[in-house]
C-alpha cells in the first residue's frame, strides 16, 4: 500500500496559481495593497494518490485548495483538470455553468463537522443534497443511495432520519464524508478533516479515508497542519510558506532528506510522543511574515540559520533537485538542513 502509484497523466495540474486579496481603505474602499495569499503555486496530483498540503496558518494552503473548487476565484494561473471524459479543462477560467457538470467530480470535506452539516436537515437531506442539486435520481433512488453511503462510512442506514445533533464529532465527520462521496467524485479536497476530532477518533477517520480511497479509487488533496497525520496518509507532500510552495517530494524522501530549511524546521518543531527522544535544538526563531508585506529575496531568509547574502536579494525559483523532489532554496544540495 505504501508503494507510490504508477506514473500516469496527472489528474490535476496546478500551474502558477495566484490569489491576491485587495486591502482597501477609506470610504471609497481604495485598494492600497494586496495580501498575496497564494503567490505562484505549482503542483500536480496524480490519479489515485494523496497529496498532502502542509503549512502553518496563513500560508495559503486553504486558499489554494478552495481555488481548485472555485469556492474562491483565482487571480492568476491555471488549474488543469482531466475530466472523467478524458478532456483537460482549466478550472480557473471556466464559467459557472461550464463548471456545473464538473462539480460532481470534485468534492470537499471540511474541518468542522459541527459547522459543515445543516442542523435543520436530517442525514437523508444532508447527504442527499449533492444528488438533489445535481438532479441525480428521484426521491426513492436518493434514499437508497444515502443508505448505501451511510453503510460505506460505517454508519447504520436507519440513522438517516435523525438530525446531526444526535451524533458525535467523529460520526458527524463520517456523515460529511458520505456527503462528499454522494456524487461519486474522483477528486476529494479534504481541508483539515481530522484536526477537530479527538485523538481516539482521528485514527478511525484516517483509516476510513484510506479504506475508501483504495475501494473507490479516489484521489485526495489532503490539507492539514499536523505533520504526523499528513505523513501517515500522503504519498507525496507539498509544503507551503507565505503563499509559496517551498518543497514538494514523496513522503519518505521529504521526511528522510528535507531539502528546504523550513521543512526541516517544521519537522523538528513537532513534539515527539516519546519522552526518551528530546526535541530541543534548532527551534525556529521569529515569526511568519505577513503575506501583505513579504521580505525581500527568499521569504524564509529572516528566519533561516543558513541564509547567505544571496538569499536576501534574489528570490529562489522552485527547482527539481532530484527526480520528483522540488525545492525553493538556493542552498539545496550544498547544505544539509
Amino acid at each position: 500500500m505504501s508503494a507510490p502509484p504508477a506514473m500516469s497523466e496527472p489528474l490535476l495540474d496546478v500551474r502558477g496559481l495566484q490569489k491576491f486579496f485587495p486591502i482597501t481603505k477609506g470610504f471609497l474602499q481604495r485598494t492600497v495593497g494586496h495580501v498575496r495569499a497564494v503567490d505562484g503555486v505549482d503542483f500536480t496530483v496524480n490519479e489515485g494518490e494523496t497529496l498532502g498540503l502542509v503549512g502553518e496558518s496563513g500560508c495559503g494552503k486553504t486558499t489554494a485548495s478552495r481555488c481548485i473548487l472555485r469556492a474562491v476565484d483565482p487571480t492568476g494561473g491555471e488549474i488543469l483538470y482531466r475530466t472523467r471524459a478524458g478532456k483537460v479543462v482549466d478550472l480557473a477560467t471556466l464559467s459557472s455553468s461550464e463548471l456545473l457538470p464538473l462539480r460532481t467530480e470534485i468534492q470537499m470535506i471540511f474541518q468542522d463537522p459541527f459547522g459543515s452539516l445543516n442542523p435543520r436537515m436530517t442525514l437523508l437531506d444532508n447527504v442527499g443534497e449533492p444528488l438533489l442539486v445535481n438532479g441525480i435520481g428521484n426521491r426513492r433512488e436518493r434514499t437508497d443511495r444515502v443508505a448505501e453511503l451511510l453503510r460505506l462510512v460505517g454508519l447504520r442506514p436507519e440513522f438517516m432520519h435523525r438530525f446531526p445533533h444526535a451524533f458525535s464529532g467523529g460520526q458527524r465527520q463520517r456523515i460529511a464524508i458520505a456527503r462528499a462521496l454522494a456524487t461519486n467524485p474522483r477528486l476529494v479536497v479534504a481541508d483539515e478533516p481530522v484536526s477537530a476530532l479527538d485523538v481516539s477518533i482521528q485514527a478511525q477517520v484516517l483509516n476510513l479515508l484510506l479504506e475508501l480511497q483504495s475501494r473507490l479509487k479516489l484521489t485526495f488533496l489532503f490539507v492539514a497542519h499536523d505533520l504526523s497525520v499528513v505523513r501517515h496518509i500522503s504519498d507525496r507532500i507539498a509544503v507551503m510558506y507565505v503563499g509559496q510552495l517551498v518543497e514538494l517530494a514523496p513522503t519518505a524522501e521529504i521526511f528522510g532528506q528535507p531539502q528546504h530549511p523550513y521543512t526541516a524546521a517544521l519537522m523538528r518543531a513537532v513534539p515527539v510522543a516519546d519522552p526518551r527522544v528530546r526535541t530541543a535544538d534548532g527551534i525556529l526563531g521569529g515569526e511568519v511574515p505577513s503575506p501583505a508585506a513579504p521580505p525581500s529575496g527568499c521569504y524564509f531568509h529572516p528566519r533561516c540559520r543558513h541564509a547567505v547574502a544571496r538569499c536576501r536579494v534574489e528570490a529562489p525559483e522552485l527547482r527539481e533537485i532530484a527526480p520528483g523532489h522540488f525545492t525553493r532554496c538556493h542552498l539545496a544540495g550544498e547544505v544539509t538542513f
Partner: protein
Amino acid sequence: MTSDQTPLLSVRDLKVSFTLDEGLVRAVDGTSFDVMPGQVLGVVGESGCGKSVTMRAILQLVERPGRITGGEIRFRRRDGGEPVDLARLSPRGAEMRDIRGGEIALIPQEPMAAFSPVHTVGDQIVEAIQLHSHRWEAGGRKLSRRDARDITVGLFRDVGISMPEQRVDAFSWQLSGGLRQRAMIAMALSCKPSLLIADEPTTAIDVTTQAQVLALLRDLQAKYNTAIIFITHDLGVIAQMASYVVVMYLGRVMEEGPVDEIFHAPKHPYTKALLRSIPSLYGETRVALPVISGALPHPFNRPPGCPFHPRCPDVMERCSAAVPSLQPVAPNQLASCFLYHDQADAG
C-alpha cells in the same frame, strides 16, 4: 514520586457536577492526584474527560450551573502552615482571591479570548500586579502604576518579547498568536506563583510557535522552579514537557505515573490504546492505525462501572458492575483497572 516530599497540591476524590435541565452531568467524578513542588505534571485526556473542569475547580472558577459536590483540594500556601482546602473556600472570598493569580495562576488556551480587546495588554498585567501589591512590598502599600509598569516591562523581557517598552502599550489583537501567548505567560508569572496551570496553552498556535512557547515554559520552569500542571490532549507535548503524567477519561483518573513508564510501560488498556492510535513521525505510512472502537459516550449517558468498559478490548464481567479504584501497578505507577486488582489484593 518521592514520599519524603509533601505535595504542594493534593486533590482527593474531587467531584464536580453540572445540573442541567436534561439531567446531572458528572464532569469530574472522583479524581485524585498530587502535585509536588517544582514538578511538571501532565494531565492528558480527550474532550469531556474533565481535565479543564478539574483545573477550574482548583481555582474556584467553576461557573454555574456547575458545583463542586465533593472531595478536597488541599493547597500548601507560601507562608507555610497547614494546607488549606480550596474546595471549602468561598470563590469570592479574600483568601481565594489572594491565592488565585497570586499563588496559583492560569494560562488559558485561547489568549485572544482571555485578554480584553479594549485595554492594552500592559494595563491588564499592571492591574493584576497592583491587586497583588503586597507580594512586592512588605508594607502593604499599593504599588504605583509606574512601578507596576516597570515590572511588566521586565516580565515581557523575561518571556522573550522584543521591544517590551512598546509592546506593553499594544492591544491583544495587535499581537501575533505567539506574542499574545507570551504576554499571557508574563501575566501568569507576574505574581511569582508557586503553581501554574497551563490549560492547552499551545493548542491554538502553530507548530513552530508552539516549539518556541514550550521551550520558554521549560526555561522559566527551570529558572523559577514553579510547579506546572500542564493540560493537553497532545501526547507529544506531554512526552516533551511532563515528568509525571495523569491520564483522565470521563472525569476519572485511569492511570498515573512517571512519564517514561506511561509511554513505555503503560498498564491501563485506555492508555495503551491511546498511544497506539496516534500516527507517529517514524511509523509505517498509509496502513490502518489501531483504533479505539466506539465513540466517547455522551455526558448524560455515563456507562455504569468503569467508564471505559464499553470501548475496552480487555473488558470483563465485573467492569460494568463496579468502579475500579486507583491501585498501585508498579513502583510509582497507579491504574484504575480490574485487570490489576487481584495482583494488588494479593500483594
